């Protein structure tokens, strides 16, 4: 099993940066590197955040992407 090359993003700097990241992850899905999953357990249990889960196909690792909502700046992190 390959290791996952993705890195955690604890904080996006702006909404435009976040949008660029969303475009990138969408490309990953289209190219088959990643696949989108259903959100099984929301970030800190909060359903008010917009959130998507992705699985890195080669490594099998699952990640979450949480949309920013000021003052929260969004996050991309592996799901434990």
């Amino acid at each position, binding site marked *: 099993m390959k290791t996952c090359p993705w890195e955690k993003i604890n904080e996006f700097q702006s909404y435009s940066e976040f949008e660029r990241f969303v475009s990138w992850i969408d490309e990953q899905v289209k190219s088959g590197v990643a696949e989108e999953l259903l959100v099984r357990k929301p970030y800190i249990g909060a*359903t*008010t*955040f917009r959130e998507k889960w992705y699985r890195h196909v080669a490594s099998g690792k699952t990640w979450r992407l949480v949309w920013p909502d000021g*003052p*929260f700046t969004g996050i991309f992190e592996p799901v434990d």
Partner: protein
Amino acid sequence: MFQSLVCLLTLFVCLNGSAMKGNAEFWHSRLAAKSGRATWNEFQAATRGQFATRAETGVETGTATGAGLKPAAVTRPEPYLPTAPKTQLSLPAPKQPVALLPEAAESLAARGATHWNPLNGPGPLGEKLAATFRGASYTELVTSEPTTLYRVYGGKADELGPYWTRTPPAGPLQSQIDSALLPQWGNTAQNVTRIQVPPVTTIYEGVAAAQGGLVGGGNQVFIPHVDAKWIIK
């Protein structure tokens, strides 16, 4: 002999008839005399011992004593109230206090407000969300009554989200300063939505932390779950 019997029988019938008539007249005159001219208390006092009150019997009719007759129907007189309105106002029945289930009451008592700060840990929100409160300090509490909250939105920000405030917004700029909404996140704060959070809802409340030159300092409430039905139009 036969004639004597007939005479005795006639005499008996006459006497008994006059007694009954006199008794009926007594009740009739009594009711007619009192009806509409005396108060209910006076009427009750006048007929005390002959009519049981509604509270005593639970029925409207009473039993006459002495003559062994029961009035076919007793009409209770209207109370005489010169200034009383003709129409009766019907007031709603007083609401009974809603008792909480023992489990719920116990749960509420156990779940009192908890203050979280850097000394006792980031708490249920975790470090990243705790940092959105000034000094990473906030209070976890359960609402005990309907609570009105406001949220400014517009641009990239949706109408519903996790961050709210108890303070009615005083304009987009003031909201951006108080809630430390940096322009790079695209919340134009041009619209305001208002919700009424029902009782027994967990919320996290504190003061908005400063961000990128915006001082914050406004009231800030984080709600993990918001129902669109809470919106007040």
